[in-house]
């Protein structure tokens, strides 16, 4: 009797312990899962709060004006509409906005096709040790620090672009607007786009490869059984299945390209106060400007320069979110039309 009772108590205490463990687990899981949201909200709050004086000072001109001028940091501080800023200060970020979008767009145009085809080869065409080796190499490429890409870009790629590729493209496609004109020094938009493409290719490749490997084997075999070629299977069977994830992978790469700082800072040519005139013009991206100008901004006694850089950071954050949303919206719309039409073979 007493033994049985002891047994019952033992079970009860075990139950109690597991109930506590359960509560503990829930608590920890709740805290952990809330973390990304809290951190994102905190970053957004800090950046937007930091940007407020600059938003009041510049208004919409922040994204329509091309003049970026910290003002005379050694002169008097003037007051405009209740906001203190150095005389002559103007924070027009259009040049950096265009630089960011243009360089990341070039990177995507190059990286997406290369990545999808590389991923298809890795997922379907090679087997065994070769597959592991190639996958490993792609992942290794993703791990190279951006400053190394920048160094390689400035020492090897930029001189080649300036002396060979740039003049070559200008010669062949000079009649296309934006592709003609002086090929410059190699430090500029084209080189930035190429370096960024190299940096995001492994990221997109790895994501797309994993997606393609999840496509059920039966579907592919069905396609082959119907007499489709490898390309047709990829185009009409595999890619439609992974479409949503594919857009996610591209958005991931795009976000990385827009936020990349060091490599673009080294090969972009750091243009100021002028929009790119052609594919070879120097550019600046938002991230690079923040890195470049923060130190001078700290010497601004009115602190307006720091607020302007915070607004730049907020704009970059918003841009990343917007491109992500647009990409997702796009995939939903495309998915709906394709679904209505059905699969054509």
């Amino acid at each position, binding site marked *: 009797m007493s033994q049985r009772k002891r047994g019952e108590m033992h079970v009860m205490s075990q139950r109690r312990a597991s109930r506590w463990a359960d509560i503990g687990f829930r608590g920890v899981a709740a805290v952990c899962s809330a973390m990304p949201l809290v951190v994102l909200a905190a970053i957004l709050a800090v950046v937007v709060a930091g940007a407020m004086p600059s938003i009041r000072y510049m208004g919409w001109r922040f994204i329509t004006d091309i003049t970026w001028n910290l003002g005379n940091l050694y002169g008097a501080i003037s007051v405009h509409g209740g906001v203190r800023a150095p005389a*002559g200060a103007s924070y027009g970020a259009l040049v950096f906005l265009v630089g960011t979008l243009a360089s990341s767009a070039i990177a995507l145009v190059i990286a997406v096709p290369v990545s999808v085809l590389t991923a298809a080869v890795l997922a379907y065409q090679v087997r065994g040790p070769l597959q592991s080796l190639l996958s490993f190499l792609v992942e290794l490429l993703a791990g190279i620090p951006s400053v190394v890409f920048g160094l390689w870009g400035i020492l090897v790629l930029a*001189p080649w672009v300036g002396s060979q590729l740039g003049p070559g493209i200008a010669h062949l496609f000079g009649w296309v607007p934006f592709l003609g004109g002086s090929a410059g020094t190699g430090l500029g938009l084209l080189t930035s786009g190429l370096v960024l493409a190299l940096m995001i290719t492994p990221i997109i490749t790895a994501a797309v490869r994993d997606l393609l490997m999840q496509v059920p084997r039966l579907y592919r075999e069905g396609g082959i059984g119907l007499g489709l070629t490898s390309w047709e299977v990829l185009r009409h069977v595999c890619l439609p299945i992974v479409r949503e994830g594919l857009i996610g992978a591209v958005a991931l790469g795009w976000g990385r390209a827009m936020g990349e700082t060091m490599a673009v800072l080294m090969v972009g040519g750091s243009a100021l106060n002028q929009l790119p005139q052609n594919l070879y013009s120097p550019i600046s991206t938002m991230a690079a400007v923040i890195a470049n100008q923060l130190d001078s901004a700290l*010497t601004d006694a009115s602190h307006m320069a720091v607020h302007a850089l915070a607004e730049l950071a907020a704009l970059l954050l918003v841009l990343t979110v917007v491109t992500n949303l647009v990409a997702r919206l796009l995939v939903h719309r495309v998915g709906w039309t394709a679904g209505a039409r059905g699969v054509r073979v």
Partner: protein
Amino acid sequence: MRMDIRMRTWMGGAAAAALLLTVAGCGTNSGGGNSGSNQTASGAENTSSSGKQTGASGDGSKTVKLDETGSSLLYPLFNGQWIPAYQDKHPNVQLSAASTGSGEGISDSMQGLVQIGGSDAYLSDAQMQQGSSMLNIPLAVSAQQVMYNVPEVGKKHLHLDGDVLAKIYMGQITYWDDAAIKSLNPGINLPHQKIVVVRRSDSSGDTFLFTQYLSDNNAQWKSKYGFGTDVSWPAVNGEIGAKGNDGIVTALEKNKYSISYVGISWLNQATQGGLGYAALKNKSGQFVLPTASSIESAAAAMVGKVPDDERISLIDAPGANSYPIINFEYAIVRSHQSDAATAQALKNFLQWAIDPQGGNDTKYLSPVHFQPLPQDLEGKTKAQIDKIEG
């Protein structure tokens, strides 16, 4: 010398790692047996300040911590020269230095986060009004040269002046064989090639100096662009912004017909890479090269004009042999320190730093390409240092 610095950095890193391990070990193994490794850490390097300093070594007084952040130009002087030398004699003062950029150093010092903010530029009037009694204490004299990559000219020293340079940087002079450049350089065969304008893209003391020289010599530059560690550069077609002196030198080497300004500490490397540098026109109309003697005579010529707070541009010093682009490197210091011991230690260190027999000895300054402060300046600087209080 370079090797030496790298070795020290490595040892510093190793010591810091050891320290981290010790601290991590402390978590489970509370106390006991870590004093030995602490001692190695503080002996091997001088940047670690997280080490627990139990008990004083040497003269038995309390250990005082002095931190410096700021200019990347001043960092090798602090980290590689001054700190090891000073700490040998004053083991109870724990010095650390970090290369963060002048703006960060100024900001840290004004907020009282560090005792010394290393800066290539003095504080503006607005900053002086804002910070509670900030001091600008000159530590050494620096200079910069204008360099170019023109194969036809090679390493010949072109004659240039501030007005021509301002016009080049505003896009008004665009070819190397422009009449204005030709008239300064009779007899030199200049090519009809477009000038590739290169400038710093990051905040820089070198930009501060160079734009001061342009402002002093071209009214249009002065009114439209002015001077600062960053300015709103005019849009010149094909202009390149490069990061750091290393980025500038690389951009010059990779691009024929380019021109830029480079800190004096890079002179040797850059000339070995095939770049030429200019003789610049000074106030008395002479074209002068940056040498120890021309920099020193320019600094000496300016002493009489230095105000009591020592905030002054040394551009275009008078005298036939004065090099026109020089400046003071500054310690930006709060006159009111957190406590008396820190204030005293800071005063002692700064006194030593400006002493020709101490930190201003050329044996410390030459390896990092600075020139000593002019001797007659000592009175004014000492008066400033005396204002520091606890």
